[in-house]
């Protein structure tokens, strides 16, 4: 008879956002990578991220974000306009003004949607000035990239026990500092990156 039990794999503080029983700490931090997927309907994980936003709303937990998030959103939108016009050569055309009208329209739409999202959930926006030095210590202490370090420092500063992200770079942090809520396809790589 085959064994039915056995040891469950260690979560290492990394959980799937698709999991129906996922527990949401209050507050919970949102990373730009998650918000991009939730706002843009053509993104591959849009439905999953949107469903989690509804779950956050229904559970009544508040969210926290770094003030870097809307800046990254604007950067993404500008890049979308360039990529739509220039394809894979979009980086070479950053200073070409012909994509700017589309970029401005898209930016207004995206930021309006982000602000609408915030109407529905209690929110702690964390200014960069409150986290700059903590971010530096996360970079030097754990090897985080600068933008990840700012989001992580903001999450910790606001008292969030978890961050929702599609960026595996946050897994360089120990689980004791920040739990990671990500999509199923990133569970294994996040768990492998966690410091032992």
């Amino acid at each position, binding site marked *: 008879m085959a064994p039915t039990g056995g040891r469950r794999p260690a979560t290492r503080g990394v959980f799937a956002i698709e999991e129906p029983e996922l527990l949401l700490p209050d507050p919970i931090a949102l990373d730009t990578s998650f918000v991009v997927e939730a706002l*843009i309907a*053509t993104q591959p994980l849009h439905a999953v991220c949107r469903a989690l936003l509804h779950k956050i709303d229904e559970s009544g937990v508040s969210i926290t974000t770094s003030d870097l998030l809307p800046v990254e959103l604007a950067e993404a939108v500008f890049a979308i306009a360039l990529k739509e016009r220039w394809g894979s050569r979009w980086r070479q055309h950053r200073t070409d003004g012909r994509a700017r009208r589309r970029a401005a329209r898209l930016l207004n739409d995206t930021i309006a949607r982000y602000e609408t999202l915030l109407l529905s959930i209690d929110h702690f926006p964390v*200014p960069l000035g409150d986290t700059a030095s903590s971010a530096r210590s996360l970079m030097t202490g754990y090897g985080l990239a600068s933008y990840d370090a700012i989001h992580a420092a903001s999450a910790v500063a606001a008292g969030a026990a978890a961050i929702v992200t599609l960026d595996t770079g946050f897994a360089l942090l120990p689980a004791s500092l920040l739990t990671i809520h990500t999509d199923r396809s990133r569970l294994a790589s996040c768990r492998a990156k966690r410091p032992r």
Partner: protein
Amino acid sequence: MRARQAIDVDGQRSKMSGHAGTISADIMRSVATTQTNGHPERLSPERLAELKRPAAAKTPEEKRAALERATEGLLVKVRVTPDMYGRR
């Protein structure tokens, strides 16, 4: 003694004198969190209370409608990848 205890930072927009002129309270607050033995520091409950933005939508229906408006129908012709907002 930690810097936060040594420096009285009162008011978000207050200015303080310094050797290079005036230093905004935001910058002083940032400096105040440097000496934390490499661990990020939590903001004080008072600072968190300052930052809190309560949801403007109050009823479950209003909240659901706001979420629907925010997340429905934004279509673009390309796939957004992390390098497009400065990530690796």
